[in-house]
């Protein structure tokens, strides 16, 4: 049986929302970070679905790039988090509030 495209979209939307909420409610930097990755990948799902619906490959091409970019983000992000952990011995987002007005 063939699953209608709408389902994929809904799934993607749900995943995306989970990611957003995760970023908002979790305090551990690494977990927040994973939530962002989740958002990106849910968008990938959306893109692939649309690519199938629209019958051209642009979406899949973009999703390739998204993967690569996500990897690069992982690298930079983890590097920053690790460095911060070295300085503060904490990976808690709410410990990072020295800069404020």
């Amino acid at each position, binding site marked *: 049986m063939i699953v209608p495209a709408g389902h994929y979209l809904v799934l993607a939307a749900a995943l995306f929302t989970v990611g957003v909420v995760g970023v908002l409610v979790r305090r551990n930097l690494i977990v927040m970070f994973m939530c*962002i990755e989740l958002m990106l990948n849910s968008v990938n799902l*959306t893109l692939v679905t649309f690519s199938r619906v629209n019958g051209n490959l642009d979406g899949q091409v973009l999703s390739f790039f998204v993967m690569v970019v996500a990897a690069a983000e992982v690298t930079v*992000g983890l590097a920053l988090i690790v460095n911060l952990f070295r300085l503060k011995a904490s990976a808690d987002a709410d410990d990072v509030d020295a800069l404020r007005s």
Partner: protein
Amino acid sequence: MTLLAQIPPLQIPDIAWSAISPELVLFGVGILALLLDTAGPQRLQASFLVFGFAAAGAGYIALSTEQSVLPGLVGLAALGQFALTAIWRDRPRLLSALLAALGFAGAIGVTTWQWGAYSGRLVGADAATFVGTDSLLGGMVAVDGVALFTRVTVCLAGLVTVPLSFAYAEERRIHRGEYYPLLLFAATGMTLLASSADFIMVFIAIEVLSLSLYILAGFAKRDLNSQEAALKYFLLGAFSSALLLYGIALVYGVTGSTNIAEAGRAFSSLDAPQGMAVAAMALLIVGFGFKTAIVPFHMWTPDVYQGAPTPITGFMAAATKAAAFAAFLRVFVGAFAPLQWSWTPVLWVLAALTMLAGAILAVVQNDVKRMLGYSAVAHAGYVLIGFVAVNRAGVSGVLVYLLIYTFMSLGSFGVLALLERRNHKAMAIDDLRGLGRRDPVPAGMLALFLLSLAGIPGTAGFVAKFAVFRAGIEAGHAALVVIAVVSSVIAAFFYIRVIVAMFMEDVPEGVAAEAPLAPSTGMSAGIAFSAAVMVAFGTVLPFLLVDLADQAATFVS
């Protein structure tokens, strides 16, 4: 199988490399600098290797095609880098700084070359192959006025940032080999963003520049503020670019294309505004609004500007804004113009919010960098005026504003960097008291930049403000302009506060006399250059700038 049947047969896009030649120059120089830095003692050999390859490639091009200009340039550049390496073999930082400056200058040169070809006056190449408002590289890159103008803006920003950085980074001991390459990569991303005609390109470019800037913001590895700035910038940037990406996905879903122009056509052909399209536009505004620091997506701005190394802050404030606004322009004023009735009110409100919030919040700041961060927010609002006036005057106003703002921002942050070098600490407004007495020249420079930011007539800032305000009036957004005037009066308060502190208050007793200011050649050169540009564009030849911008703004019908 059905899917494969739908896929059109593949055709190889004719790749006009010269369309992205500035990006190629920047990127190539970045790689080169990185390579030479890592080569260590064998720097000279590596450089010779590069020289050999470049010369061979140039010769090949010269033989295969009748062209002589491009290969000659490549050969010269290779020779130049070889010479530089030979001379400064044992001073890697200076070498990479010089290479970076060379790269920015070269990119500007190439861009002007494109410009010449673009406006019909050929400079040694066949214009039709690579310029024109139609997008190139398989619809990925648009080489139009806005793209070229913004490229120049960005590269000028980089060109000024390099000398400002050198002594500063030395002094803060953050002068590692990646500094200038990252600067170049960030600039690459920015120029690419400014000239991207496809949402795929938009996303990639934004990520390229963001990733470089995340690292640069956190370049002071042992400085908690810098780290915090980098982390905040990173998390929020990733978050917002995810939102942007979702917006792009929705656009693609609605229109079936990632090409900006096609998407715009498909959008405008929608009979009724329909949920997905609206959501898509909203998410796009979020993505761009984050990069351009528009309220309510501005909150990272003061924190990051305060924490990041000062020259980098200046570069971020100036160049990122320019690039992001260029893409913003192409997407909304360019492609979505038929839908303006739907998005103009939104941006109107955002502009008003941004101007007022930026100006008001800046009033209560004590740290000068932070204050300038908020003022950057306010300036984004002024730029938006030229934006919501969806017309040619508006576009040219935006371009003018961004170029002038580049120099104002770099100049003021440059002076701050100069002072930080002496005081080894971030400057609060009280630290500036009596500066006009002790070192009148830097104080005068800072005063000049602040007055220009405040938009006092006779300075370039006034010309910029006038251009966008006028566009707003012409488009009938008088109320918005009035808000802008009020906001700029509020803004005048805190700019003047700094000037008063510098010139009309004395050093409080009990403050140890500071060491005399030791300005480095690079810093003074950068600051003086910015100041000269300020004065020139403020007094005698603003018309030149405005004419250029008007030419550049032609792509909006």
